[in-house]
């Protein structure tokens, strides 16, 4: 029997003294106190560089417009720009993106009932623009890869917002749940710090976004 006697546990909790234990429990009590004697209460010293690292990040995040983007990134929100009918030029481009994604996802494309124009409207209604943002100062390249583009590391590059370290792109995603990750410099897979993440089965994590007709959620 390895467990401590209940009275010895009260000794460890500081509710009893060794002298208050029955004589037959004194030895067990002394052993238990050796456990507490091993607790290391010494302060833990961190690197003196930590302050500067924190402040460098803080200054960087505070710089406008990156600060606004960073706050936006860290605030749960609907990340969408709803897809609505646009002037013809924009509309055609959005359609191509939505249709291409339907193919890549291998999900059912809208049933082609009345030719292309019908498909177009259904396709538009079922797609939502989703904006992806990553703060990655020092990165040379950033892309987003996920279930919506066959995890292709080069299919959806993000564009740097000036020299702020903030990278963004906007994609038209079909309604449904998608898993994704950012790819930094072509090799480093990074989860979205602003979105929930799940085990990817390979010892890493994937971020999740849910796209509904009402918009996108960081689900």
């Amino acid at each position: 029997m390895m467990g401590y006697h209940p009275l010895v546990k009260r000794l460890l909790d500081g509710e009893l003294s060794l002298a208050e234990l029955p004589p037959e429990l004194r030895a067990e009590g002394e052993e238990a106190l050796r456990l507490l004697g091993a607790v290391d209460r010494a302060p833990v010293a961190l690197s003196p560089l930590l302050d500067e690292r924190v402040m460098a990040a803080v200054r960087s995040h505070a710089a406008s417009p990156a600060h606004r983007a960073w706050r936006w990134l860290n605030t749960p929100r609907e990340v969408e720009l709803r897809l609505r009918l646009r002037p013809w030029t924009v509309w055609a481009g959005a359609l191509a993106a939505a249709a291409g994604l339907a193919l890549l996802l291998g999900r059912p494309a809208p049933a082609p009932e009345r030719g292309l124009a019908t498909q177009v409207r259904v396709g538009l209604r079922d797609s939502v623009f989703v904006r992806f943002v990553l703060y990655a100062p020092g990165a040379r390249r950033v892309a987003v890869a996920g279930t919506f583009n066959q995890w292709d590391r080069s299919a959806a590059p993000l564009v740097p917002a000036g020299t702020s370290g903030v990278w963004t792109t906007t994609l038209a995603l079909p309604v449904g749940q998608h898993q994704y990750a950012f790819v930094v410099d072509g090799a480093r897979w990074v989860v979205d710090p602003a979105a929930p993440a799940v085990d990817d089965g390979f010892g890493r994590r994937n971020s999740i976004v849910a796209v509904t007709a009402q918009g996108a959620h960081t689900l």
Partner: protein
Amino acid sequence: MGLEGEATDAEIVRAVLAGDVERYAVLVRRYRERYARYASRMLGSRDVAEDAVQDALVRAFDRLADCREPDKFAGWLFLILRNRCYAEQRRRQREGRPLDEADEMFAAPDRPDGAYEQVERTHALERALQHLTAEQREVFVLKHTEGLAYEEIAGVTGATVASLKMRMHRAYDRLRELMKEHLE
């Protein structure tokens, strides 16, 4: 240092929110060591703890506007760090990283009077703590390393005193089992 030491957390938080970003350095200096020990004991590695503390401080800055009671900045920051520590533990658990392959355990303290046996025991306890559940480890660390009463731990974690005691008593039994050869 004198002026810095006198400013309250609330005053500094308000100054930072008003645009004086450099004042945040005061809060960084004030809390970095104070919470380092908790993070180290929870995560079993000084280096991982350093990352956690750094990350918590940056996150706290990013969300400073959400700190509704600036005079309770310390507690608010602690909960951000606590969430970060739990997330790190979950991540490690999911990745199935054996404890021995985790980042190096911090060295046993170099005590000037340090009897070898005592140093060994301390080292063994640090290792054993990593074999407890995160909840057991937390209550042990907060009570016996940080010196909090059960009622105070309940205030921090939201758990009841009764459930904290149950966790702790299980932790005692488990530690006895793990530390057997070092306690006899």
